[in-house]
């Protein structure tokens, strides 16, 4: 059921985004209407339940990701990517990862996306004439490979083994809080945390060096 819903969502989202790209509003409205109708039909039993909202957020996430890939204007891509990150933050909330949802909004949608917006504004990038995507073999290879990859992933999910190897951990009570996350970060994974800090410093030095006008 979920698999089918996901496929319906992605096909409708693809139609919608494809309609948006050349700028034909009637096709856009039609695609949006069909997608909404399909979503309503798929979730008509539990219209107010979690499934419905998860499906709606998932539809938005797929749609915005497709716009990032398809749209010729990098600025629209960045804004739509921010929307995508917010949808994923809502997913994290549904999965009881409150701290990570907040971090996603602050760090990803805030800090990292500001970098992208800043660079695009700095370089004064315009929309590409036409959509410059790879030529010939590259384009069709990527599209075919993408479909094959999606099919492989979906097949693997379909044949995923059951729930026998799963057992509840000991963090069931305070699952997803900042306290339990911090306890793990500075307890069991303290070495990895320190390594991450070294990585951040290295990236900072590297970014400063790369962005300098001359290297002498």
């Amino acid at each position, binding site marked *: 059921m979920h698999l089918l*819903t*996901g496929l319906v969502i*992605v096909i409708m989202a693809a139609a919608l985004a494809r309609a948006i790209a050349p700028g034909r509003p009637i096709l856009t409205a039609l695609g949006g209407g069909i997608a909404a109708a399909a979503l309503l039909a798929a979730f008509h039993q539990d219209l107010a339940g979690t*499934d419905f909202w*998860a*499906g709606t957020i998932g539809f938005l*996430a*797929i749609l915005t*990701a497709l716009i*990032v*890939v398809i749209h010729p204007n990098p600025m629209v891509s*960045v804004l739509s*990517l921010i929307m*995508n*990150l917010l949808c994923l933050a809502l*997913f*994290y909330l*549904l*999965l009881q*990862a409150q701290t*990570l949802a907040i*971090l*996603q909004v602050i*760090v*990803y949608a805030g800090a*990292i996306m500001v*970098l*992208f917006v800043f*660079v*695009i504004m700095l*370089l004064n*990038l315009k929309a590409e004439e036409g959509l*410059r995507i790879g030529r010939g073999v*590259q384009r069709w290879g*990527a*599209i075919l*490979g*993408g479909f094959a*990859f999606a099919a492989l*992933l*979906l097949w693997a999910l379909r044949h*995923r083994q059951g729930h026998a190897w*799963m*057992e*509840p*951990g000991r*963090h069931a009570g305070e699952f*997803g809080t900042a306290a339990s*996350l911090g306890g*793990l*970060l500075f307890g069991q994974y303290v070495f*990895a945390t320190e390594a*991450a800090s070294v*990585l*951040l410093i290295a*990236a900072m030095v*590297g*970014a400063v060096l*790369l962005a300098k*006008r001359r290297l002498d």
Partner: protein
Amino acid sequence: MRIDFFLVMAALLFTIGCVGVLVRRNIIVMLMCIEIMLNAVNLTFIAFSHELQSMTGQVFALFVITVAACEAAVGLAIVLALYRRRRTTDADDASLLRW
């Protein structure tokens, strides 16, 4: 709620990001597609962390966010350096190391 929905969503997002990296030639958009892929991986981590009721997946997702921040900073610095030197953000114009 079963996590299969989230796994399917992550797989689709990862595929979209992967195709975007392969198809688009604008380096900034390619970096954004990499961010989409990293986020799909994060979603998988967190979905399994929820299913197994183990916080380790969330710690891993946090590290993935850290690495994504580093990657964005360094990648955008490279884009700036490339633009300053060649006046382009097209990946096909920076083909010095190609065969």
